[in-house]
């Protein structure tokens, strides 16, 4: 089934609960608005506080568990990416982030960002490290996380990448940007 198909099924599943949703809507709206304000106060342009927490947890679970500061910078870069990309699909990416954050609740576990590191890894391993079924679509998040994590100059240099301007000695006989 397509991603939009899954969204449609999710909407249909929620239909029987619509009276409940009507009652809960103001609370959800207030919570979303509060999360948005908190994130904006911290300089985020697209993400809200819930998404920021979820993505930081994703970085720790999917890439590197012991680098809090770098996780925060990665999330800021993901926010920058979402802000710069001129796309009608941005809302879908945000919906995927919230889906990952709340998916563990379906099996009566805490939200993804509230799980312990080992629980998160187990969840990612069991659910997201696949390309098949609904969780295959959620694994698109993996790309966003890697994009944020490896986009900084520091991350590039940490893997041994040498920027063009610093390649002087190792450029062998390649043309120089200055000479040509």
């Amino acid at each position, binding site marked *: 089934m397509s991603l939009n198909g899954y969204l449609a099924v999710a909407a249909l599943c929620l239909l029987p609960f619509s009276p409940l949703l009507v009652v809960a809507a103001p609370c959800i709206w207030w919570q979303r608005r509060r999360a948005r304000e908190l994130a904006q106060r911290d300089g985020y342009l697209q993400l809200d506080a819930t998404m920021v927490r979820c993505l930081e947890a994703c970085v720790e679970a999917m890439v590197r568990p012991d680098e809090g500061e770098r996780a925060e910078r990665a999330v800021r*870069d993901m926010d920058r990416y979402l802000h710069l990309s001129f796309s009608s699909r941005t*809302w879908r990416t945000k919906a995927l982030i919230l889906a990952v954050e709340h998916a563990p609740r379906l099996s009566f576990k805490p939200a993804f960002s509230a799980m312990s590191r080992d629980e998160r890894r187990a969840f990612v391993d069991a659910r997201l490290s696949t390309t098949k079924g609904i969780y295959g679509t959620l694994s698109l998040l993996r790309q966003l996380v890697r994009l944020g994590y490896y986009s900084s100059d520091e991350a590039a240099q940490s893997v041994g990448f040498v920027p063009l301007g610093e390649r002087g000695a190792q450029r062998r006989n390649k043309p120089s940007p200055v000479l040509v």
Partner: protein
Amino acid sequence: MRSRGASRAGAETSTEASYDVVVVGSGAGGAVIASELSERGLRVLVIERGPWVEPDDISHDELAMIATLYRDGGAQTNTDADMFVLQGSCVGGSTVLTNAVCFRMPEEVRLRFESYGWRLSSEDMARCSQYVETAMSVAPLDERLHNAAAQRMHAGMQKLGLEIGRFDKAFDRCIGCGYCNVGCAFGRKRDASTVWIPRALAAGCRVLPRTEALRLQHRAGHVEALLCRDLETGRHFKVSAKRYVLAAGALHTPELLLRSGLGGRNVGKRTSFNAGAIAFAEYEEELDAFDGDQMCVHYFGEGYVIEQIHNPPMSFALTMPGWFDEHHAAMQRYRKRTAAGVLVPTQAVGRVFRGLGSKLLTRWFDHPNLAFRLPEEDVAAFRRGFKMLARVFLASGAKLVIPPLATFTELRSEDELYFIDERLQEQRDLVGFGSSHPQGGACMGDDPSRDVVAPNYRVYDADCVHVVDASLFPESVRVNPMISIMAVAKHAAESIAALVEASPSSEAVTTC
């Protein structure tokens, strides 16, 4: 970049004027036809959804460039979200983001197209290809720009007795920075924005960047105007012309026809791709393959092409298989690793359509839907391709090869190649599967019951709408298609110019 495009030289926001030709899209097809028609003295307007970027706007900040220059920030997928379709969204279109690889349309492909009714003779194709190659300064890639991984692959291919292909490229004194796919920050790449658009502007063409073509307004196929939206201000406006040329790419040209209710029931059908995925190899010593041109050598196999490619760290990380510490540790060996892609010309089984969402909730679903699943025959070509690629890597001295499989796999010898047969059974078994070369969807041919566009590039059921981009191709062109599209656009310009010049001047305003 977001706020600048519309005020660039040559652009205008006034839409009072009418034109001889309005071109939607400024990529390989749109830019060439705009340039050719403008140079014949016609009044041409180009509508482009993306921003206007010049070398000064381009940096090596991969994240920002991908977000800004690629359609949907590089996150355009099929409906199953297991295939990425990368397309440029800027003045110059995807040509700004290519590796400047130039192949002529293979003669056997042209003959196949001729069997669909194309009126593009071998001589015409050679003449048009020569014309665009001269303009683009196409030349064999300077061997000094070959990166270390290319030299290794070259040795591996030689050892296996394969015929090694070297790329012809459209460069102007390239320095081999290795960042072709985010545009050239040094202005050394010859693309639509640096070759054809300046020629068009010099001849009086006008370009509207950050403007979206929404719909062709027509009465029974008589197009009266093109409805557009200024993406900076949200303002809607109309432009009118004698002729409308759609060159928005193989997903968006069919979508625009679908939105407009033109083209009949075959619009969007028979979409094909040069689709691919990337395999990785690790060597004992540090190669530093990031220093040099990204793509240097290739090999044509049975139903596939192997193209060597080495990406900067972020794109490298995005395409490399693996999870958790395994992926992180692999990235720490970036200097020892390199990559190559297997490209398969797929069968034309894809379909572009407008889903219920894009009809009812345009704010959230404002994009074409693409249904595509690799047929078994193409999956088999991928298996053959990745096995050959693994052999090349191993023959070149790689200590391990990582094919792009969902089940993480490391191959250390030819005895382990059977893993590829076992673990690659369908499209979803490929990690990072995608294409930068979508084709078809508004196929040209001489059968109105099968095709959308007549052999004179005119849409069958619209008397003044033409299509000039890769969506014309009834089958995959099998090689990187930039030169093929440009050559076809040059050919189309000749016939469209004749039609416009034959139109009485009184038709210049709103009628066809």
